[in-house]
Each structure stands twice: as structure tokens, then as C-alpha cells.
């Protein structure tokens, strides 16, 4: 009897893995096709968009840029100056000093001639205590507001910014991101274009700035990072942003907007209570909550996505920091999906409940577990002598080719749409990375994902620390001492 059950379970698992492999292939092929269609339409529409008008038009909505800062003293002044020089008519910059232990606030006060104001801070969304709101005496910096508050994490910092934001659209960014001067006008466009549905949020592409040249707040020369992890992340970001999110945007199924560069409708963010500070996946959680609100109130809505390269950030290039980031991402995903379990396969929530939620549960949250189970299953088959080399190698080759296909498609996709990496040497390096990544970096990513699951079960919270090496070239990196920017 037990023998029968054992082999029955093995048989079931065999079929499950086969079904999973098949669904992975089908889903990725669908995503590739959808993203290609969306990109084609976007590029076509973009030919008729004149972004010159939006800067001065009285009809364009105002944008409050929220930039939380934690121990950013090294680059804070340069970063805020860059934000203040964005090309847009109606915007304000709100920098939130989230209890930095270094002299971030002092540097801001000194450079921008700030003075503590008698700002009536209304905590519509509950936050840690706000110690002061600073404004500049210099009219040139009238757009700048600095909040000094007790440390409470990124979500809490953003919530305090949301409480004092005056304009219709919130642009939530990482203060150390490089924003293109056109970033606001391009990101605001989807909010202005839609007529039948309310655009509740718009996500943008995050480019990788490691090893690139930056001039006047824009990446002028793209170069692939030197490290293996850096190169891997270039491909991964292409896959995630240009392919994944474009495809989800096509069917209005996007449930994640990067916390480093996302635009939201302020009235709705306030209505849903702002960011949830007790999760490390606050960016995804907010979008899911906003979408839930719209579905529950039966208001037609859309989450938009702009594929133009408008924002760049430095990505971690060491195992230690990347593992922390991936650990946090997987915990954030698990937490968000757990918090919104009622969405699961619930037709009341439309596409989000029927398609997006199950996709994220199986292919994002459970991916590390499923991959590990697959390996264990193979080992078990080997041990009991029921291992079929034909199946194993067929599936292995197929999955490997799928990985090659998806990665090369996204690189080609970038080449056709934007063609930023012009150097042939860079392209060769990316192709080599595509070939080797499944054997070199991918196992690490799976392992870090598993650690994330394990840490979630243990109840671990928090962000860990992120070491920045600074933008521009390798020489510059040496000059900048390691600094902690987020908690």
C-alpha cells in the first residue's frame, strides 16, 4: 500500500512538474507577445506626443515629488539640486529626512538656506513624529520642502510626505535615483490621456546606472557594469520592465510599481491610507490596495506604465547586498500576497484576482520553492533508480532554451525600442551573460529567494543596509566611502 502511494505521489509530482514547465513556457511566450504589442503601440503613440506643452500648460496636473532620505549626506545636496532642476511647470520637491544618523539635514539646511517653518502638519495618515518642516528663505528654492522626522522606515517617511503634499500627483522616488529632465512630463501623460478610466498610478522603467556616464541628470553613455551580478541585473531589468511590466500593462494587470520611481494619484493614496509601513514590500502593497479600492467601489481604472528610460539607479554588485535585496523582495511579495489573500481567484477583483494574483503566487513567490522541489525530485528519482535521462535532459534543455529566448528577446527588444547599449562589446558581454546566467547567477537568486521564505517564516522584518558605490565611472567609486542609504 505504502509502496503504491509512494509511486503514486512520484507520478503526480512528475505530471505537476511537466504541467509547470509547460505553463511557464506558454505564459512567457504570451508575455513576450503582449509586451511587443504594447511597445509597438507606445512607440506609435509617442510620435504624436508633444511634451513641450505640458511644462507650461495650466491644464497639466501638479506633481509632488516625495524623496525619503536616510543617511544620504554624501550626495543629498547634488540629488536635491537635480530634482529641483526638472523640466516641469507645477511641481514641488518634498525631501523627508527619516531620522538620519549623519548630517543629511544639516547639509540641506546649509545649502538650501532652510529655516524651520510653522507648518501645520496634519497627520491624516499616521506616521512617526515629525520634528519639523523646513522651507527655504531663498525664493529660488521655493519648491523645496524638507521634513525632519523620527526614523520609521521608507513607507513611514513617504506617508509623512503624502500628508503634506499639495499637488494632485505624487511621484514617489528614491532620492539617489537619477531622473531625466523630461521624467515628470512623460510620466504625467498617462494621467492626462485617459478619458473613460481613472489612471490611479503610473510606473516607470528603472535603468542601471553602474558604470554609465551621467551628465545634467541624464545618463549620456550606457555601459554594461563590469561585475557578473551587474550584467545579470541589466538583463533582469530588461526582462522585468520592458517585457514583464509592459505585458501586464497591456492587459491592465500590473500590480507592482517600483518604489524607486512611481507616480500615484494623491486623493486615492490618501483615501486608502497611504503606504503600509509594516511590510518591506510597501510599493507592491500600495498598488494592490489601490486596485482593490477601485474594484470594490466599481470605478473603472487603469495602472499605466511608461517604458521610456527616465530613471536610473545604482544596483548592488556584491553577493552580500544583492542577497539582502532579493531576500527583502521575496518577503515583500509574500507579505503582500498574504495581506490580500481574499483576492486569490476571486472574480470580484477581476483580472487582478483571477490572473495577476495567481501568477505572482506561483511564478514569483513560489518560484524558488518549486525550483528547489524540482531538484529534490530529480535526486529522489536518481536514488530510487526511476530516473529517466530522456525526460530530464529534454526538460532541462527546454527550460534552458526558454531562459535564452526570454533574455535575448528582451535585449533585442531594448535594441529595437531604445538602442541605449550601442557598443558592440557591451552587447557581446550581455549575450555571454545570457548564456551563462542560468548556471552561474540563477542558482544564487533561487537560494536567496529560499532564504527570504525562511526569514519570512521566522518573522524577520526590516530592510537591511545598502552600500552605494556612487555613479559614473570606476575611478569615482573609489572616492566614495560606503554609506548606508536605506534601512
Amino acid at each position, binding site marked *: 500500500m505504502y509502496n503504491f502511494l509512494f509511486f*503514486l505521489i512520484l507520478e*503526480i509530482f*512528475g*505530471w505537476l512538474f*511537466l504541467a509547470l*514547465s*509547460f505553463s511557464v*513556457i506558454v505564459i512567457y*511566450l504570451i508575455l*513576450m*507577445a503582449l509586451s511587443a504589442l504594447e511597445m509597438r503601440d507606445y512607440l*506609435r*503613440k509617442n*510620435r*504624436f506626443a*508633444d511634451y513641450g*506643452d*505640458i511644462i507650461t*500648460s*495650466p*491644464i*497639466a*496636473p501638479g506633481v509632488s515629488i516625495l524623496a525619503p532620505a536616510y543617511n544620504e549626506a554624501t550626495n543629498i545636496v547634488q540629488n536635491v539640486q537635480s530634482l529641483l532642476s526638472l523640466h516641469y511647470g507645477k511641481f514641488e520637491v518634498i525631501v523627508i529626512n527619516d531620522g538620519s544618523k549623519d548630517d543629511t539635514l544639516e547639509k540641506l539646511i546649509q545649502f538650501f538656506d532652510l*529655516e524651520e*517653518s*510653522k*507648518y*501645520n502638519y*496634519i497627520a*491624516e495618515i499616521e506616521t512617526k513624529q515629525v520634528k519639523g518642516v523646513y*522651507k*527655504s*528663505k531663498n525664493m529660488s528654492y*521655493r519648491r523645496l*520642502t524638507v521634513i525632519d522626522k523620527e526614523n520609521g522606515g521608507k513607507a513611514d517617511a513617504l506617508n509623512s510626505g503624502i500628508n503634506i503634499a*499639495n499637488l494632485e500627483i505624487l511621484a514617489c522616488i528614491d532620492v539617489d535615483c537619477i531622473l531625466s529632465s523630461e521624467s515628470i512630463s512623460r510620466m504625467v*501623460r498617462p*494621467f*492626462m*490621456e*485617459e*478619458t*473613460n478610466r481613472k489612471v490611479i498610478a503610473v510606473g516607470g522603467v528603472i535603468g542601471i546606472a553602474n558604470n554609465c556616464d551621467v551628465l545634467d541628470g541624464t545618463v549620456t553613455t550606457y555601459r554594461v557594469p563590469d561585475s557578473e551580478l551587474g550584467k545579470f541585473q541589466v538583463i533582469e531589468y530588461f526582462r522585468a520592465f520592458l517585457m514583464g511590466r509592459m505585458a501586464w500593462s497591456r492587459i491592465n494587470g500590473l500590480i507592482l510599481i517600483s518604489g524607486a520611481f512611481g507616480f500615484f494619484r494623491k486623493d486615492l493614496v490618501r483615501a486608502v491610507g497611504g503606504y503600509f509601513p509594516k511590510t518591506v514590500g510597501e510599493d507592491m502593497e500600495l498598488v494592490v490596495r489601490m486596485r482593490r479600492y477601485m474594484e470594490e467601489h466599481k470605478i473603472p481604472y487603469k495602472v499605466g506604465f511608461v517604458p521610456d528610460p527616465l530613471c536610473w539607479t545604482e544596483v548592488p554588485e556584491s553577493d552580500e547586498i544583492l542577497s539582502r535585496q532579493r531576500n527583502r523582495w521575496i518577503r515583500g511579495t509574500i507579505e503582500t500576497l498574504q495581506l490580500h489573500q481574499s483576492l486569490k*481567484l476571486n472574480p470580484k477583483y477581476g483580472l487582478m484576482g483571477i490572473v495577476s494574483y495567481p501568477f505572482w503566487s506561483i511564478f514569483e513567490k513560489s518560484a524558488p520553492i518549486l525550483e528547489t522541489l524540482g531538484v529534490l525530485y530529480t535526486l529522489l528519482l536518481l536514488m530510487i533508480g526511476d530516473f529517466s535521462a*530522456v*525526460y530530464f535532459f*529534454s*526538460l532541462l*534543455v*527546454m527550460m534552458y*532554451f*526558454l531562459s535564452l*529566448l526570454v533574455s*535575448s*528577446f528582451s535585449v*533585442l*527588444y531594448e*535594441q*529595437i525600442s531604445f538602442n541605449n547599449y550601442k557598443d558592440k562589446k557591451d552587447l557581446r558581454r550581455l549575450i555571454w551573460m545570457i548564456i551563462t546566467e542560468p548556471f552561474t547567477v540563477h542558482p544564487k537568486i533561487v537560494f536567496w529567494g529560499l532564504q527570504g521564505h525562511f526569514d519570512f517564516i521566522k518573522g524577520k522584518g526590516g530592510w537591511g543596509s545598502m552600500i552605494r558605490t556612487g555613479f559614473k565611472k570606476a575611478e569615482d567609486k573609489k572616492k566614495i566611502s560606503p554609506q548606508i542609504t536605506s534601512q
Partner: protein
Amino acid sequence: MERILRSSFFFAFFIFYASIADAQEELIPTDSSAFHNFLFLQEEIPNLSLRYFIADNQDSTSFAEQSGWALTDSGLVFSSISDLKLARSLEQDFQAKSLPYQTQYLVFSEVLSFKATRQYVVNLVNSSDFLVRTEEVIPSEDIVSLASYAHYTPLEQFKLRFVRDYKLLVVTIIIVFFFVVAISMISFMLLMKARKNKREHLLAEYDQMIVDPLTSLLFEKELQEIIDLDQVTLNEYFSASIVSKPIFKEVMIDRIIGLNKKMKGDFKEKLKALYRKLDLDKISIQALNHSNWDRVAMGLVQINEMDLVEALPKVKDHTNSSNFHVRSQAVATVLNLSERVDLTFLRDQTYPLSLWQQMNYLRIIRFVNHQKKLNLEILFESTNPSIRIFGYRLVKTLGRVDLIDVLATLVDRVSPEEKVEILEIYGALGAHMEVNFVNECLCSEDQNLMLTAAKTASVIGNADSIRILIELIDSEADLRRKQVLMKSLFDLDAQSFDRFYASGEDFEMKKIKDHILDPLLQYV
């Protein structure tokens, strides 16, 4: 859900297996005589034998001497027979002799009842220790001729492995599917990339070829000379063989339109004349009939830029197009090119106007407004609310004070959203005569309308406004709204503000007051 699926799977699995067992069991008859015949058909069943018995009577002694029979206390017993075929012939023999025999079933040499024997056979069948034989069907026709109807199919052992092994078959199908799709997608992308590269190369090459002759024409020829250019002279600048190429024409259009945007005065006219001379206007107008929306929209942009007024009737056909971009470009073109700007076509638009469209139309209307008097009031009659709102925004942006009276007649029958727009106009244009409407809106239940009215009152309010604002401030519980109201009061009458709130003890009120009075926050 997962649990239900799992349970369903196991249930289905066991039902499947149980149904196979049931099918075998059904072959064993439940009727005793049929079962008896069934046993003969099997010829042999492990550990099952038959024994015949004749009860003790007068005739029985005469059989005792016959072979196989043994005399016992209760009668005659024939030795047990496991060869059921033999048992059958024996029984036939007994029946011919009309012997009064009885049959006993022996399982493992133990006499069992019919039911128990049947159950034994059933168990053997279920445990696959015995395969049931069924009666052979004797065909009525010649077997060879029957076989000719049936095509030959090989037995399992002769089939291809991947056909026999269904899992391998599924994997193979998936792999084939994957490779076909993958290769198609990559080929398509590579083709696109190659075409794009080729096109970019050609564009750059043609652009180089265009720059010099175009510059010469613009700087060397007068407008009339360009208009009078004959084909031969034109071909001296642009070779006929190249001009006929579609990509060259495309580059030429882009280049001329690009220059037209940057240049002023006479040069603009020369470019437009050249555009027509090279028959590029025909390409732009033809694009309006194209099936791809982006080509139509591009044609509209070109017509707009090059002032191709003759295309206006065709352009008007697109002003209510279902495509957002075509509609936007068509409206922009009509607004720009119409001799007499009649906004009737805009009033009659059925699609809602997006902010993006409003922004674009506003830019054109602002420009046109300097040259022509616009009948904006026609937009207030539209059945499309977004058009009416756009009309109000135009009044505010263009500073059309003359239309305030018209607006005043509308305020009673418009939606709160429109009232908000009208209030903003009153505030922006300083329409003091409409202060009663502002005060009326201040008392509205609609929070948004009330707050907009408060902001407007800060510009055009009167004593009544002050009184209403103070009442509202006292009754308002929401701090954010209270702050807006207090700011309006402060802007309207700082003295009243001081009188009522200067010495306030309320902590929240004090914070709001400090905020309003802080010079650092005057631009917030």
C-alpha cells in the same frame, strides 16, 4: 480550493482503478449453472477442483466397481478433478447415463459452497492471479476475408517509443511547440532589427543628400521662383530617380516640416511652396485614407504643419474618429487651418475630451485667439460635459471677461463640477458682480464646491462671504478644510481673521493660524 482539487484527483484515481476491477468481476456469472459452465470454459483454475458425489442408494453399489468411484459411508465419490475440461466430458458422460450425481467445489481440497467458490475465483481475478477466458467467437464468415477489412496495427512492443510513452510524447510536443514559436519570435525580432538598421542607415544617407540642395533652394531662390520651378530644374536639385523612392520622400517631408517649425516669415512660405512642388502634399492627403491610424495621424500632422487647407473637408471627417490620436490631430488641424474658426464641430464631439487633448487644443486656440474672435459660448451648449468644461477653461485662460454674463445665466442648471470651473473663472477674472453665486456655493453641501468657493471668495468675497466663512470655520471638523477656509478668510480680510483668531486658545487653531501667518509658507 487546492484541497478540493487534490481530493478530486485521488477520488477519480480510485474510481478509475475500481472500475477496471469491476469490469473483470462482471465476467464471472452469479448464477450457479452459468458459473458451472464458466468453470468449464476456464479449463483450469489454480487450487480449484471438482468432485462428483452420488448419494447412498440401491444403485450406487453397482458403480462402486467402476474406475474413479469410491464407496464411502454416505455414498459414492469420484476422485477430485482439477482439469476442468476433463470434468466437462465426465459430466456429459454422467448425464448420458442419467446418473443422479451432485457436484462439489474443492478449493485447496476443502469443500466450499457455490458462493464461496465464486468469491474465490473473484479474488483470484481481482488480484490479477488469474485471467478470465471468455468464449471464443466463431465468425460466420471466412476469417481471412474478415481480416482483409481490418488494417494491420502493430502490438505495443513494435510501436515507436515516444508514441507508446505518453509522457515523452507530451514533452516532445511541448519542445517542438516551444522551438517553433521561439524561432519564429527571434527571427521576427532579428528581421525587425535588420529592417530598422537598414532604414536608419537610409534615412541618414538621404538626409545628407537633402540638406545641401534644400539649403541652396531656400537661400538662392525667391518664393515666386520656387513656385515657378519646372520639373527639369527641380531634378537638378533632387535627382528624379531618388525622389521617386518612398523613403526619400519620407525623409524630405520630415526635413521640410522640421525646418518649417524652426524658421519664420518668408522661409516658411518657401518651404510650403517646395512641399507642394515636390508633390509631398499629395502623400500627406493620401495618408488620410490609410487603414493604419498612425499613418492617418501622421498625415494630419503634416497637413497641419504645411497649411494644406484644401484637405480641410477630409480632415473634418476625422474630427469624431474613434481613435484618440486621429481625433486629437484632426481637431488640432481644423482649429489651426480654418479660415473662420467655427467651434461647432468641437461642440458636437461625442467622445470625452482628455486633459491631454484639452492641453493641445488650448495651445492652438490661444494662438488663434490673437487673430480671430472665437465663439467660445457655443461650447457651453454641448451635450458632452467634458467639452463644456473645456469651454469654461478656455474662458479663464483667454481672459474672456465678456462671457461672464453668459456664464451667470448658466450657473443654475450646471453640475457641481462645472460650478467649480465657473468659480475658478470668477476668481481668475475678478468677477465681483458674481459674489452672490460664490456665497451660495460657500453654503453648498458639496465639499469640493464649497472649498473652491472659499478660494474664490478670498479674491472677490464681500461681507457676507466673511460671515459665511467664519460660520464654516467654526463648524468645520476636518483640519485640512478648516485650514483652507481660514486661509481664504485671511486673504479676504486679514483684520477679521485677526479679530476672530488672534487670541484663540485652541491648539489646532493656533497651529493653523501660525501656518497661515508664517512668511516662509506663503507659497505653499
